[in-house]
């Protein structure tokens, strides 16, 4: 039985835990900085104490590590809540934020920039902008194809998503094959990563994540009802078509934004909802808040490993998320079988 008190306690606990993970992770990397130092640097503007750290350490913490960790947390949150929402909407545990082809669309946009981009006036923001535009256009296209009258049948939506994703993936391969340059960069991008992302990326992502979190938290009951099908939800007084549009637009926007700043980080949107659900049960009133923090922590920790495993080089983040996520997920699936 659901108790709101449990949700509040769990959320508060997870919030603190997330902050601790972020703090610890900020100290870890090619050069290690102790958590105390990190904490001192972070609270410097309040405490105003005389620095006992080197200016180099301050730059690493404030301008290199912290923005990518904050960005990682925002992306983890965004992907996790999108996954939760789409699994409920499609009543399918296989659904993830990329299910409607956002990743393929965004990858196509990125490939175009990598292959032909040097010919244009190359701005720093060209890549994320193209990825964002392509990702969002894909969803829009899928949506238009699937729309019948004023309704969006969920199965048609899934199938048109699969078909259009396949098409874009083929075009992408074609460009990569014929363009024949920057292949490694493209590969690295499609496996996702936070390397070298500064505060400007955080400011791009932040409004999307905040809006997504507020919207999803407001829709927890509706998401619960949607698990039992659209018809059932309608009978409970939910404007189903409106809800579907809100969910699709919200997840499309925050996922496209996430992909545009970090590339395609696979597996997070699929497994975080499941892992959390195995612990909390499928009630969205606790599933959504818990996923917000679990998603953030997962990416922050995965990014930390991406930084240190083959330091000074970095692994693509997507490789880590799949490497740690998949076995853990399999373990949970085996140990709590039948309780999705």
């Amino acid at each position, binding site marked *: 039985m659901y108790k*709101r008190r449990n949700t509040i306690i769990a959320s508060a606990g997870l919030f603190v835990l997330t902050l601790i993970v972020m703090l610890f992770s900020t100290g870890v990397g090619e050069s290690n900085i102790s958590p105390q130092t990190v904490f001192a640097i972070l609270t410097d503007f309040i405490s105003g104490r005389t620095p006992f750290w080197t200016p180099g350490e301050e730059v690493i913490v404030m301008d290199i590590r912290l923005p990518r960790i904050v960005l990682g947390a925002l992306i983890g949150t965004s992907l996790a809540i999108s996954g939760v929402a789409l699994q409920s909407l499609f009543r399918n545990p296989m659904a993830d934020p990329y299910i409607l082809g956002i990743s393929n669309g965004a990858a196509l946009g990125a490939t175009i920039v990598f292959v032909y981009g040097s010919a244009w006036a190359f701005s720093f923001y060209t890549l994320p902008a193209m990825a964002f535009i392509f990702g969002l256009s894909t969803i829009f296209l899928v949506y238009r194809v699937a729309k019948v009258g004023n309704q969006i049948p969920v199965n048609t939506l899934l199938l048109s998503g699969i078909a259009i994703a396949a098409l874009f993936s083929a075009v992408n391969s074609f460009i990569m094959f014929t363009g024949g340059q920057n292949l490694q960069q493209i590969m690295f991008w499609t496996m996702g990563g936070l390397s070298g992302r500064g505060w400007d990326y955080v400011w791009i992502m932040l409004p999307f994540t905040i809006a997504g979190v507020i919207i999803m938290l407001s829709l927890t009951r509706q998401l619960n009802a949607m*698990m039992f099908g659209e*018809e059932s939800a309608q009978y409970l*007084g*939910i404007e189903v078509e409106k809800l579907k549009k809100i969910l699709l637009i919200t997840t499309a926007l925050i996922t496209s934004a996430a992909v545009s700043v970090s590339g395609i980080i696979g597996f997070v949107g699929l497994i975080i909802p499941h892992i959390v659900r195995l612990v909390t*049960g*499928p*009630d969205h009133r606790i599933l959504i808040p818990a996923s917000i923090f679990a998603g953030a922590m997962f990416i922050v920790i995965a990014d930390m490993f991406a930084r240190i495993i083959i330091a000074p080089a970095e692994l693509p983040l997507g490789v880590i998320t799949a490497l740690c996520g998949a076995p853990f997920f399999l373990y949970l699936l085996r140990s709590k079988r039948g309780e999705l």
Partner: protein
Amino acid sequence: MAIEVKNVRFGYSESNDVLNDMNFTCHDNRVTGIIGPNGCGKTTVLKVIAGYLRPKSGTVLYNGRHTETLNSAELAKLRAVVEQSVYTPFSFPVYDYVMLGRTPYQKNFSADSEEDHRIVTESLKNANALSFQTRKINELSGGELQRVMIARALAQEPDFLLLDEPTSHLDIRHQLELMKLLSEISREKSILCIIHEINQASAYCDDIVLTKGGYVLKEGNVSDVLKTDNIEDVFGVLAMQFKHPQGGKNQFIFSLPPENKSEKKLRVHVITGEGRGRQIILSLKSAGFLVTAGILNIGDQDYDTCMSSGIEVVSAPPFSRYSDTEILKLKKMCDCADVIVFVATNIGFGNLANLETALGYMNKKEFIFVNTDINFKKSDMTNGRATEIYNHMAKNAKVVFNVDELLSELL
């Protein structure tokens, strides 16, 4: 308070309509059953009434209010729907599932109120589902799930409860329990329920809406609508009517009608009793013969069938020896008939006259002896007289063993 369905037309495609022109009213504090053959649009009309499907034309009114003017939440406070089944891949607790019924009353971000909890517990109790409130929804059996779905519907505190074949997945005990539960609920709420089982509808519904081909064929009080001729019209089966021993509601036994029709308009008199001749009488009538029957004791199942199907009968008071007047009437009928059909029954001094009269016509008219149940030992309470005649008939008359053989003999 009522649901009024007025001139509702609906189709899943532009060209093809499932509902052509539906008109009926679901009255206050009554159980209204929707009955009709497969594919006649029962579920569709329920979805239209529930506001899930929008009719092409026509209106649905709740207490005089047009559904189009109500938003989803307002509608959810007026009516709750119990679907045939509910599926989710996630294991959701029963209590929280029933709490979903409170959705139309709750605001985003708000917690479940004390009143919500009280109503959910009450609903679980009323639906006899309190004992499994802590279980998971996807671990319940069919009967339990059905009750939980009803509990959720009750938690919506609706004026109207719409159910789509609530008994279809249940075993017989659960079916009866569920129908009893609905009767109890109907003291406070109006119930509109699609029912497959005609006898259940007859036993538990107050009103019936009989539909066929997207139209309402008949609506009204259950005993006025669920009659043999209406059932034959709508479902194309022969219905033998009898009274349920408990409550005396009409019940029916069904059989397929004969495939061929007689052109000759022959007059057939059937001598039978004990309910053994019911199907034969109805089949003959349906095949186009002019059927009479008797002598039958009043209250005999054959007698009830003849009465409900409008067949002319020579009758006698129950449990008494046939009088001479009655025997005379029987002979008159036999004289008028082209064919005499005798259906084997138990014989005592009470109905011995039937057997003896039949014997008298064996050589006068076309005579057929029907022995429907070979294993049935006809008990003879007449000191051997009946057995003697039976043996004679078995040897010398045309003997058939079932309705189909009888019909092929006559057609």
